[in-house]
C-alpha cells in the first residue's frame, strides 16, 4: 500500500517536472489580466493564418499579472504580455521584461499614446476613468450636474459621491491621480480633506461602489455620483435586462476630471517564438483586433483607422482634456501618495 502510494507520488512528481511533450502546431503563450476578452472568430483566424495555437494565460488583475511576469523574468511563462497600463508602465520598463519591437502599424497610432519611446511597450487601447452620474437623480432633484472637480466640494453635492480605495482599486487609483494632476502633489490632500468634509463615501472596490452604492445601476444605492469608466453608459445599454433607448447614466468630462488609462502590449524577453510574437503584436494593433476591442473590453482602440461601434458613438462621452501624469513620476511616488491619501481620508 505504502509502496504504491510512494510510487504514484514519484510518478506525479515526475510528470510535473518533465511536463508532457506535445506535438501539433506551435503554441504562442499570451499572458494578460483577467479582464481580457476577444472574439473567438478573430483569434481562430490568426491561428489558421499562422499555423499556431494561441494560449491565453490570465493572471489576475493588472498588478498581479505584471508582477508574475516580472517574477518569472528568468524563465518567462509567456511570449507576449498584454495589459500593463500607464500606472504600472514604469515598473515594467525598469524591470526590463520586454524586447523592443517597432511595429510598422505604430504609424497609425497617435503620438499621445506612444508613451514608451524605446518601443518596448506598444499601446493597444485606452479608457478614461471619470465620474459617472445617475441621470434620473439629477433630473428629479432639479440639480445641476457638477462641472469641475471643485464643484464636488460644494454643499449641494454633499454625500453624493462614492469613490474606490486607490490602494486596492484601479479606477480608485486613477481618480486619485486625476486629482494629483489637477491640484499638484502639494494641493491634492487639501482637496481630499474638503471632499471628506463634504461626506465623501469611500469603498474598497469597483463592484461595491458601482453595484451597491451607486444609484444609477442595478444596486439602487444612495450615491448618484460614482468613479468609474466613461464607457459604462454604453455597457449599461448593451447589458440591460430590458431594451433601453437611452443610457441611464452619463459621464462628467470636464477638464482634468478624468484620468486616461492606456494599456500596452510587449514581447517578453527570452521568447522562443520571436517572429510569431511580433506577428501577434501586429495583429493586436491591426484594424481587425482594434475594432473588436470596444465591445469586448469596453475601452477605445488606439489605432485611428479603426471604426467604433454605434453604442460608443451614441452613448459615450469623451473628455477633451483628460489628466495625465508621467509614468516615471507615478512609479516614484505611488506609495507615498497613497499613504498620505489614506491618512487624510480614512484616519
Amino acid at each position: 500500500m505504502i509502496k504504491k502510494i510512494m510510487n504514484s507520488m514519484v510518478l506525479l512528481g515526475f510528470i510535473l517536472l518533465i511536463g508532457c511533450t506535445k506535438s501539433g502546431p506551435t503554441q504562442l503563450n499570451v499572458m494578460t489580466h483577467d479582464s481580457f476578452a476577444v472574439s473567438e472568430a478573430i483569434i481562430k483566424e490568426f491561428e489558421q493564418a499562422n499555423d499556431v495555437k494561441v494560449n491565453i494565460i490570465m493572471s489576475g488583475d493588472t498588478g498581479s499579472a505584471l508582477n508574475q511576469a516580472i517574477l518569472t523574468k528568468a524563465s518567462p511563462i509567456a511570449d507576449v504580455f498584454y495589459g500593463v497600463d500607464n500606472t504600472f508602465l514604469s515598473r515594467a520598463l525598469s524591470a526590463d521584461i520586454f524586447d523592443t519591437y517597432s511595429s510598422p502599424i505604430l504609424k497609425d497610432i497617435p503620438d499621445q499614446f506612444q508613451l514608451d519611446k524605446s518601443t518596448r511597450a506598444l499601446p493597444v487601447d485606452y479608457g478614461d476613468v471619470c465620474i459617472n452620474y445617475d441621470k434620473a437623480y439629477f433630473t428629479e432633484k432639479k440639480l445641476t450636474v457638477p462641472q469641475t472637480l471643485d464643484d464636488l466640494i460644494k454643499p449641494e453635492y454633499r454625500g453624493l459621491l462614492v469613490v474606490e480605495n486607490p490602494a486596492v482599486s484601479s479606477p480608485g487609483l486613477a481618480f486619485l491621480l486625476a486629482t494629483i494632476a489637477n491640484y499638484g502633489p502639494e494641493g491634492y490632500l487639501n482637496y481630499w480633506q474638503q471632499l471628506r468634509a463634504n461626506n465623501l463615501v469611500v469603498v474598497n472596490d469597483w463592484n461595491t461602489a458601482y453595484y451597491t452604492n451607486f444609484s444609477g445601476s442595478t444596486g439602487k444605492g444612495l450615491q448618484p455620483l460614482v468613479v468609474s469608466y466613461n464607457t459604462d453608459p454604453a455597457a449599461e445599454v448593451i447589458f440591460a435586462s430590458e431594451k433601453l433607448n437611452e443610457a441611464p447614466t452619463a459621464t462628467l468630462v470636464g477638464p482634468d476630471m478624468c484620468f486616461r488609462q492606456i494599456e500596452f502590449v510587449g514581447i517578453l524577453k527570452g521568447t522562443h517564438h520571436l517572429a510569431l510574437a511580433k506577428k501577434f503584436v501586429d495583429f493586436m494593433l491591426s484594424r481587425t483586433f482594434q475594432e473588436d476591442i470596444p465591445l469586448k473590453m469596453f475601452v477605445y482602440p488606439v489605432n485611428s483607422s479603426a471604426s467604433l461601434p454605434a453604442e460608443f458613438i451614441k452613448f459615450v462621452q469623451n473628455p477633451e482634456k483628460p489628466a495625465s501624469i508621467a509614468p516615471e513620476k507615478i512609479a516614484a511616488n505611488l506609495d507615498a501618495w497613497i499613504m498620505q491619501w489614506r491618512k487624510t481620508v480614512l484616519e
Partner: protein
Amino acid sequence: MPGSCSGGKQFWNKGLFGLRKSSWLLWLIPLLFLGFFFLYPLTAIFGLALRTNELGWTSFPWQRVGSILGFTIFQAVLSTLLTVLVGLPAAFLFGRYDFKGKNLIRLLSTLPFILPTVVVAAGFNAIIGPNGLLNLLLMQIWHLDQPPIQILNTLAAILLAHVFYNTAVVIRTVGSSLEQLDPRLEQASRTLGASPWRSFWEVTLPLLRNSLASAALVVFLFDFTSFGVILLMGGPQFATLEVEIYYQTMQLLNLPLAAWLSIIQLGCTLILTVIILHRGGGLPIPVAPRLSHSTNRQIQSWKERLFLVMMMVLLIALLVMPLVALVLRSLTKLDAVRSGNNTIFGFTLQYYRELFINRQQSLFYVPPVEALRNSFFYALAASGLALFFGSLATYALLQKSRWNKFFDPLIMLPMGTSAVTLGLGFIIVFATLPNARDFYPVLIPIAHSLVALPFVVRVLQPALASIPSSLKQVAATLGASPWQVWFSVELPIASRAAAVAGLFAFTISLGEFGATAFLSRPDIPTLPVAIFRFLSQPGSLNYGQALAMATILMALCASVMLVIDRINTINS
C-alpha cells in the same frame, strides 16, 4: 492521552495496517506532499523576496505593521468568540435533539462556506444595505427617511460576515463529537442529582474541550487570515495582515515587506497552534457503543421548545437570510431604467437563460454547465487528496511520537498562509516549467487540498482519538485481524468525522478563489472565476447572471451535502 489506560492501548493505537513503530512512515507521505507543494514554493518566494531585501531594522515600518497586527488579532478574537457563542448552542441542538427540518437547517448553515465574498456581500446588501429589504421594511413601518440599519463598512459588518461564514465549522465539528458522546455519562450525572445546566457544564463541556478547541482554532485562523470579508464588508478603513500583504505585493511589488508580513502571519499561526494543541490536550471523548436506536432526544418540555425556536430564529436570520436574498435577487428584475420614481420590478428567469447564450461571441464564453463540471471535479479531487493526506497525518498524530510537536503545527501552516504569497510561490516554481499550462488543472486541486488539509486533520483528530482502545482490544481478542479491527470498529466511528472533513474540503475547494486566480485557465474556469467575470462589467444583465451563477453554485453544493449527509445517516 493522559488519564486513560496504558500498555495494551499503546500497542493498539499503532495498529493500522501493522504500521507499528513506524510513525515516521505515516508522516512521510503527507510531509512529502506538504514539502513539495507548500514549503518549496513558499521558501522560493521568501528567498526571492529576502535576497533583494533593502529593508533595514530602522526603515521597517514598525508602527504601521504593529497597528495592523493589533487589529488583525482584535477582530479575529472577537469574531471567534461570537462564532462560538452562536455555534456552540447550535451544535448542542443539532447534536442532542431530533426535530423537523434539522437536516435542512444544518445543510443551509454550511452553504456560506462555498460562496465568494463578492456574492456574500451582495447577499448582505440585499437585506441590510441602504436599499436592503429589511431597511425598506423598517422605513415603512416607522416612517423613516433614513435606513435605520447602517452597519455596512463597519467592524460590525466584519463580525457579522465572519459569524456567517464560520458558524458551520463549530456546528459540524462540535456537533459530530456530541452525537458520538456516550449519553449515559450525562444521564448518570443527572441521576446523581445534578441540574441539566450543571451536568452540561461539568460533564459534557469538558468532554467536548478537544473538539471545541479544534473548531475554535480553525475559526480563528480563518478570521485571522481574512481577506475578502475585510475588503468588501469592512471597507477601506480596515486592514488585516492579509490585506496589507496583498497591497504590498500587488500594488507596490514591495516583496521584502510582503514577505516579512507573511512570516509574521505564519509565526502567529504557529504560536497559536502550539498553544491550543499542546496546552495538555483535552480528554478523549468516550463514544457511545453503537445503539440500534438514536441516542438523540425529542423536543419535549417548554424550555426545550423555547430553546429550539430561539436558536432557529437566530440561525435563520444570521445564516439563511442572506442566502435566500441572493436567490431572490437572481430571480428579480431590477433594472437601471427608471420612469419617474418607479423601478421596473418583477420576476424573471432571464439571467438563467442568458447564462447559456454566448451573446458577445467571446473566446472565453463558457456554458455554466461546463464551469459547474470543472468546479465539481476539482472539488472532488481536492477533497480526495485532502482526506487521503489528512487521514495519514491524523493516524501519525495518534502515534504519539516525539515528532508530533513539530509536525502538527506544520500541518496547520497552509491556513495561515496568504493566498497571494502561495500563489506567487506556485507561479515562480511551477509555472516556469516547460508546458506548465498543461498541468494547471492538476495544480488547482492540489492548491485547494493544501488549504483544506489543516481542516481535515483538525476534524479527524478528535474523532479518531476518541475511539476507545477497549473496543479495538475486544475485537482483536475475538480474533479480528488489524485490518478487520480497522474496518469494523474504527471506520464506522470515524466515518462521520471523515464525512464532515470531506464535506468541508469539498466546499473549500468549490469556493476557493485566491490561489485559483493564479492558476486558472480561461478555457477551464471554475464557477467563482466565472462569477467574477460577470461582476467585472457594468449592466444589470451581468449582475443578474453573476447571482444566477452563485445560486447554481449553492444548489450544486447543497445537493452534494445532501448526499453525504444521507450516506452518513444510513451508515450510522
